[in-house]
């Protein structure tokens, strides 16, 4: 579907991995919006930062693991991938443990990001 309009879309993943199907829904929204050539930003917030942990062994989980799909987001031209810096710290996540490079944002930067977005999907 062609459209002349482009919007800044921010998708926030707040739920921990394997807690619900919302993170998978977030990923579906991201991939669909990418097909519509929208300006996309993905923010991992709170417990959502745990999706970023590399080498997750998920064979025993019945809930879909989205982590495997995350490194390919660059191919879909997701403009920015951002993580809640405070949550990274609280969960003891070091940048070398993450499965893709992210920009750590302070609460103030996150507030600005939300304010500047045309559309926010909060999952």
């Amino acid at each position, binding site marked *: *579907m062609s*459209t002349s309009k482009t919007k800044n879309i921010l998708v926030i993943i707040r739920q921990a991995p394997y807690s619900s*199907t919302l993170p998978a829904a977030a990923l579906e*929204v991201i991939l*669909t919006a990418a097909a*519509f050539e929208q300006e996309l930003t993905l923010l991992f917030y709170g417990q959502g930062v745990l999706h970023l942990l590399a080498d997750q062994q998920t064979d025993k989980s019945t809930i879909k693991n989205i982590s495997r799909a995350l490194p390919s987001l660059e191919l879909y031209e997701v403009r920015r991938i951002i993580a809640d810096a405070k949550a990274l710290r609280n969960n003891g996540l070091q940048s070398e443990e993450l499965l893709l490079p992210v920009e750590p944002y302070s609460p103030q930067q996150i507030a600005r990001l939300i304010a500047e977005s045309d559309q926010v999907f*909060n999952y």
Partner: protein
Amino acid sequence: MQGFTLVIHAAPWSQASSTAFNFARELLAQGHQIYRLFFYQDGVFNAFSYLVPSQDEIDLAEQWQELIQRHELDAVVCVASALKRGIIDDAEAQRYELPAGNLREGFVISGLGQLIDAVIQSDRTLSFLP
């Protein structure tokens, strides 16, 4: 002015669906346009025609249907969410060799592209999560 899109993530027995419904009704009462209603995840249960709530309960799914039909609203049900919850129209019933469709009249099954189209076209898109 393309108006509002509401994304309903909650089943009819959840407060969030009720909030979305009241919001939609009030938008229309105040003369605003609704570009689309998008039923996503458990929100697809609002489009399920086999729900039989107790007599002393409000049938929110029926109220959604009545609002949609009266105002001829575009009410889209996410196909992936619907299929995984057993909500199908007659075409899907045929494709998967299931006995019958069970989608309420007034709703249509379509893809997530309809959500992104709505975000692009609408003035505002609001999500209602449980």
